[in-house]
């Protein structure tokens, strides 16, 4: 007599309503399986994206602007009053990070921090009668290679040092190359917004996997960028890479406090995408919850039916000396059994789907390039989906179970006898 009595009775009830029970079981299993498959796919993609960002992009970018622009002298003097200023001439100042040299020196003092100054701007690449707009970043190769992945992402050309060895060298993204029909060693005209035109030679092509970078970014020596922009000795960005990426946000805040310039940690640079991830997760949880809710209606339905059909048995059990709690437990156990069994089947199914998706190969290009699904496997997905399924199955059983426990045996035996 291995089974406890309540479990024995509960099993008989479910066996009696076999088809309905199977349908509910299927609902729970599908909910759990979908959760595991979707979560693994989405989180795989998200984590891959984040690790690529952390790998490729600087962890902090210090920019040549301020989070709160400095107040104008008239504002300080007159507060909110409306003023009519005549004969005002805006100062034609050269923007950029002032005191960059000392800032770099200070930051370099600290352990685990690598810094690289850059100057970014826009250019037009002219090649074979075709104009392609792009971002240009002036870099110092020996510093840049320590803060970004650029050198490792080169698919043509060997190192960033090619910028030194070739006069007027430029490195472009493979997307830029494609758009402009440009190939390695081509001579192209680079036109800057200030009107400077330089003939430059392609000494490298990179492919980072981040679509936006590959399609728009180009790199030249810092000095050349300063020439193109007509801003000698100016830098407008300091890129920082940390040995410990967790420190990005606190360090960025500290830099802002210390130097006043806006310092964006990687989370802020990718704010848009990270925001989309949050929405994706909300959609995923809603979808799976909807499936589980439907499954729970099934469970509610089966157990309500059983309670209705087994009213007589409930009456006799109570007259025999079963307590309300014993009766409630029987029906709760039925919900729990569907929940647990559904979870186990769902786990197996989910595992199967994930492994199947892992074998699929196809090219996709969104935020990132990939060959097939990027899957993230973690016991957490199994725990969350199982927890949700078992909890909701038990809740679904609660209502009919409570009704069963409250049935009055006198009404039942009188009614049937």
């Amino acid at each position: 007599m291995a089974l406890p009595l309540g479990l024995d009775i509960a099993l008989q009830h479910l066996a009696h309503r076999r088809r309905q029970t199977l349908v509910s079981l299927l609902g729970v299993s599908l909910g759990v399986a979908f959760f595991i498959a979707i979560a693994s796919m989405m989180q795989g993609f998200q984590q891959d994206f984040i690790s690529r960002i952390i790998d490729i992009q600087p962890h902090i970018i210090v920019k040549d602007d301020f989070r709160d622009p400095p107040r104008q002298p008239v504002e300080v003097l007159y507060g909110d009053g409306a003023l009519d200023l005549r004969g005002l001439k805006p100062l034609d100042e050269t923007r950029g990070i002032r005191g960059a040299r000392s800032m770099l020196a200070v930051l370099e003092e600290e352990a685990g921090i690598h810094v690289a100054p850059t100057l970014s701007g826009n250019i037009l690449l002219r090649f074979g009668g075709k104009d392609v707009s792009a971002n240009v970043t002036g870099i110092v190769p020996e510093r840049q290679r320590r803060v970004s992945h650029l050198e490792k992402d080169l698919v043509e050309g060997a190192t960033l040092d090619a910028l030194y060895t070739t006069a007027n060298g430029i490195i472009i993204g493979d997307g830029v190359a494609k758009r402009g029909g440009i190939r390695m060693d081509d001579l192209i005209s680079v036109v800057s917004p200030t009107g400077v035109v330089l003939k430059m030679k392609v000494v490298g092509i990179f492919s980072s996997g981040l679509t936006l970078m590959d399609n728009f970014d180009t790199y030249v020596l810092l000095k050349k960028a300063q020439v193109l922009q007509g801003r000698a000795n100016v830098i407008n960005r300091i890129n920082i890479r940390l040995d410990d990426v967790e420190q990005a946000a606190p360090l960025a805040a500290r830099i802002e406090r210390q130097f006043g310039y806006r310092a964006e940690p990687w989370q802020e640079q990718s704010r848009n995408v990270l925001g989309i991830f949050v929405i994706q997760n909300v959609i995923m949880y809603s979808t799976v919850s909807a499936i589980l809710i439907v499954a729970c209606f099934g469970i509610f339905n089966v157990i309500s039916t059983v309670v209705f059909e087994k009213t007589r048995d409930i009456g006799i059990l109570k007259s025999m000396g079963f307590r309300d709690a014993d009766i409630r437990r029987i029906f709760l156990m039925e919900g729990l059994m569907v929940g647990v069994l559904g979870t186990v089947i769902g786990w197996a199914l989910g595992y199967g789907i994930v492994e199947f998706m892992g074998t699929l190969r196809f090219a996709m290009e969104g935020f990132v390039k990939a060959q097939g699904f990027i899957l993230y496997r973690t016991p957490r997905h199994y725990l969350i989906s199982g927890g949700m399924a078992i909890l909701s199955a038990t809740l679904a059983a609660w209502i009919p179970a409570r009704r069963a426990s409250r049935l009055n045996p006198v009404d039942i035996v009188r009614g049937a006898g």
Partner: protein
Amino acid sequence: MSAFAIETRKVTRELPGPVPVTLVRDIDFRVAPGEFVAVTGPSGSGKSSLLYLLGLLDRPSAGTVAIQGAETSNLSPDQAAALRLERLGFVFQFHFLLPEFTSQTNVEIPMRRLDRLDDRAIRRRATELLETLELGEHRHKRPDQLSGGQRQRVAIARALANDPPILLADEPTGNLDTHTAQIVFELFRDLAHRQNRSVVVVTHDTHLAELADRRVHLVDGVIVDD
């Protein structure tokens, strides 16, 4: 402590409502250990209602019910259930066996709920009870594979499972032919006289009631003859 297995004092049960219904009124009723009592009366006279009160399935509106000398009106529902499990056995007109289980399992259920014997002892006792009631070869049949009389005997075996000192039966022979009914009643008499149980049986068959030690006649919820 009272020597009676069941003792009621001025038990009245009213169903509340716009027009209150009185099921039984001012019942003073005693059953001694080893006594076999038949409750008779016309349909609607309150026989079943009285039995539910004696069995603690229902609570009186006024008056008291004592089981083996212990007052029951202050018992919680769970305590009343525990008392039913241990000391009271019910048999109804319809057998009320659990249809999914075999005779053997049906008889084991109250013992498994009480959980006082180990599994082996429970199985052995269920088998013995069924054999005593000449159901040995029907132990592994489900209720739908048994005849009406056999089912009722399984129900009696189940009522006896926890060896209760009190057995309450509500028209247990209502669906049985006269011969089988006679056998069942003789069984009740043996249970009272040989095993010293108190047996209260509701019936409207006056002929069968003759087999009892005592007859209580109810009319309109009141005992008119004892």
